[in-house]
């Protein structure tokens, strides 16, 4: 389910983008799944068409979805590859942490701090 929190400080386009990105990365939306049309989603969520269009554009730039002309927007295979890349990096990190004798909790804390330190792409612009 895609939802919009009207009281959130996060802009609506970023809420839509991040939720879709999460669903794609977590494989809730499988490769080849068709996303709703920009107009339909905007209508469902009570948003402006441009807001949803921006979210879709950013998802496409990130390689998570692809637009196939008039057929619509689909989840691309790149998202799947991205997940595999992150899993590989996590595995390497876990090995490094173990080699250096880091406590698992400390290793997780470092990752958490690194994630929190990165501003979402929507805020950077």
């Amino acid at each position: 389910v895609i939802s919009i929190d009207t009281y959130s400080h996060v802009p609506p386009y970023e809420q839509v983008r991040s939720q879709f990105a999460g669903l794609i990365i977590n494989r809730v939306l499988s490769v080849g799944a068709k996303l709703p049309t920009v107009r339909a989603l905007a209508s469902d969520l009570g948003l402006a068409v441009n807001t949803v269009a921006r979210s879709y554009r950013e998802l496409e730039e990130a390689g998570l979805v692809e637009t196939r002309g008039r057929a619509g927007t689909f989840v691309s295979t790149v998202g799947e590859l991205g997940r595999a890349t992150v899993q590989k990096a996590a595995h390497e990190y876990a090995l490094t942490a173990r080699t250096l004798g880091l406590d698992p909790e400390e290793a997780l804390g470092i990752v958490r701090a690194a994630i929190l330190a990165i501003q979402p792409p929507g805020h950077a612009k």
Partner: protein
Amino acid sequence: LIVDMNVGRAQKWLVRQGLVEFEPTWLVAGRIAARHRAAVAEGVIIGLAMAVSVAGLVAAFVTGDLRKSDERSWYIELQAATCVMFALGMLVGFLVAARGDRAVAQSLTGRVAHPAAVGLRDVLGRRRIRAAVVAYPGGLVAGGFVALVVDAPSRGPVIIFLAAITLMSVIAGIGLLGVLRRPAVATDPRSLYVDDVLRSQDAWRALGPYPYLLGMNIATMGTSPWYLVLYVYYFGTTIFYVMGGRNALP
């Protein structure tokens, strides 16, 4: 009092759908109330159509026109008109429900939506799509075939049949398109599920069993043995409607 009635109606509807763990929220109550108003409006038009149909039958019986093939064309036209009134009743019901939905949607602050596109198969299911194909394009094929093979004097009823089923197809198409394209009226996953159920029911209602009534009425009016094709169409449509209407969700 009206609010209590709407909540009670919503509660009953949820129980009928097997959604006993769902609360009859004001959102669900508002949408069910809109459908109740739609059913009343539709019922008035269909009741009127049925009264006209019965009055026509009585008049044709009293005048003896029903037995004379040359003088019963007015009766055939009247029956076709009543079938079209059924379809118009369906359209009015759809519009009243859509208006109610819009009013409810305007009062929502937060909204939710499905992340994946919802297509015809998700809303209707294969069984109901087959029923619609048998009823509408099937009716046009059956009627077109009968119109081609019967001789000119006995072509009247099938021409009316073809005109009426074309109009019904257009009305059903408009209704179905409206149901598929309407925005989701939901604030959380539960109300989104209710929206799915309502969308599925509305789509099935948009297809209405009116071609079935039309087939039944017109098939009895024909004088050529080729009108048996319309009887086959009538029985086929009946079977598919019964099979398609069994489940609340596809």
